[in-house]
């Protein structure tokens, strides 16, 4: 990749599957708030596993915005997802299930310039099955706060939210 922006924000998810559209919505809000900047790239992506590798290689630091559903927190709760929670070596149930951590380890093993710093911001989701463009109200309401957190991360590298316990 030729001279990628140092920082990359990826809003991960599918914007026609209800709360899975959270990541892309946050990316859109950030784009509107920040305008065009050479030092920051903001992407929306509905991809997983190995496809993610193509997006993140070459950047210095990456923030991924996504959703999880633990059922243990109110929908819309914002948390940092610790990448260390994912096992680096596990059997796959399907090729598209290559989780982020496996993808990163594989990428590094193959000599790809994988960023040292990869941070994941997640919102607790409620509906990840219904095909519709609307998120559930509590998750939609969390978009501005998430966009503000992203702006803080871009400027300071900090993500001032609790880390998810697992």
């Amino acid at each position, binding site marked *: 990749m030729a001279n990628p922006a140092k920082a990359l924000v990826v809003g*991960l*998810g*599918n*914007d*026609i*599957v209800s709360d*899975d559209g959270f990541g892309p919505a946050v990316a859109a809000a950030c784009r509107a708030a920040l305008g065009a900047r050479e030092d920051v790239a903001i992407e929306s*992506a*509905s*991809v*997983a*596993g*190995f*496809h*993610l*590798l*193509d997006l993140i290689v070459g950047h210095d630091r990456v923030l*991924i915005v*996504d*959703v*999880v*559903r*633990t*059922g243990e927190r109110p929908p819309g709760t914002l948390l940092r*997802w610790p990448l260390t929670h*994912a*096992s*680096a*070596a*596990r*059997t*796959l*149930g*399907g*090729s*598209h*299930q*290559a*989780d*982020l*951590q*496996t993808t990163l*380890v*594989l990428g590094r*093993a*193959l*000599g*790809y310039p994988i960023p040292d710093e990869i941070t*994941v911001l*997640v919102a607790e*989701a409620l509906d*990840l*099955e*219904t*095909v*519709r463009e609307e998120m559930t109200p509590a998750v939609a309401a969390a978009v501005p706060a998430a966009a503000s957190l992203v702006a803080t991360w871009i400027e300071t590298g900090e993500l001032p939210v609790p880390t998810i316990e697992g």
Partner: protein
Amino acid sequence: MKSIIIDPITRLEGHGKIHLFVDDEGNLANAYFQVPELRGFEVFCRNRPVEEMPRITTRICGVCPEAHHMASVKAADAVYGVTPPRAALKLRELLYNGFFAGDHTTHFFALGGPDFVVGPEAPKAERNILGVVRKVGLELGAEVIKQRARGQRVVQIIGGKALHPVTALPGGMSKRVTKEEQQELVRIGKEMVEFGKLTIKIFEDVVLANKSYVDLIMSDMFAHRTYSIGLVDPNGKVNFYDGTVRITAPDGSLFAEYQAHEYLDHIAETVLPYSYLKYPYLKKVGWKGLVDGPDSGVYRATPMSRLNVSDGMATPLADAEYRRLYGTLTGDESGKTPVHATLAIHWARVVELLFACEATCAQAGDDEITSDDIHRPPEGIVGEGVGIVEAPRGILTHHYKTDEKGFIKEANLIVGTTNNNAAISMSIKKAAEGLIRKGTEVREGTLNMIEMAFRAYDPCFGCATHAALGRMPLEVIVHAPDGAVRETIRRYC
């Protein structure tokens, strides 16, 4: 049996569940699997213009958007009653073969690899894609990634975007391919063929040279004598993009052939308790439950099924590999004796991978793909259309009905994995029944065998991309005859 409801709020969701039912003796009685499925798709599509469908359906599934793009645009062609110019059809097919060449690569090395390249007896920590890379070397690992990128580049050149193609529209394509782009496609095609040959060599050295692997492929534990389904070209050879749907019986004899618009005469669906999944079956045979044999309408739609229904591959190297596969597994190189071993699906995938590479190379060299005549505007409307392609996991059917202005009134999809729901359940049962017996405890080993059974089908759970974080665990629930949960084993797969 009473129904067991697992409260979706109190535990992690978005995971595959396998329900095992034991009888009064404590032996396995039945097995079902359950995965989260999207809902509301029809409502979402209603009243949208049919020409939007090829782009909407690519967004449904982040795993094989190219397959949805193509099945959808073929259905939309039919809704408008328009046949695209020849150059447009060639571009679509080239895009599709390039996609398959990349996709099958990932599947073989990430799925077949852990079981065959690393080996079924290898320690669990090694049986994954990282273990495959360690075994075959970083150089080949990098080649795998490059091959994936080649597939994406073909999709990008013809489809406009690398991951979610946008250029197929009713009546043809919206973007022409330049001479320079064609040169790049030819170069990619040649590299792909070399990679395909390399993959065959690895399969030969690592799998075929090891008798225990070949025995495992042929193991009865993973065999079902089902019907097979797949698309064939006018010469009876495997084709991913277009052709006639052919169904062969468990003994290999021709059972039926149909064109896309006739699919409802041949395929019906049923729903079973506890699973919530749809189980398609052959209408003219009938649903007899989760059993195989000629009297059961259960069919399989996998790379192996496609080879079973065909008379061979349309490219020379892949055709030679087709004959070697059948010669090895059935003793009959012609392919007229079908292979029913589930783990042979991995081998069939390698044969198809080589075919996709050769086809990409050959079709890239056809100068007609740079023609300007790539779109024929629709002039009337039929109001109903069916499009069928082969997705990597099996045959994919899109069926739309529209009003007289082309706005969707009804949409029905039968996706790749769904075709195999019955067979996957049967394979899980077969793998589990040898391990679950009266007085024995369900252990980790049960999960490994079950995983191996369903991994061969590459079942698609990829309806939501939040799986990127790896939160897609497998849960095995053992039920007593009264439905009560006896044991639950969970782990991340």
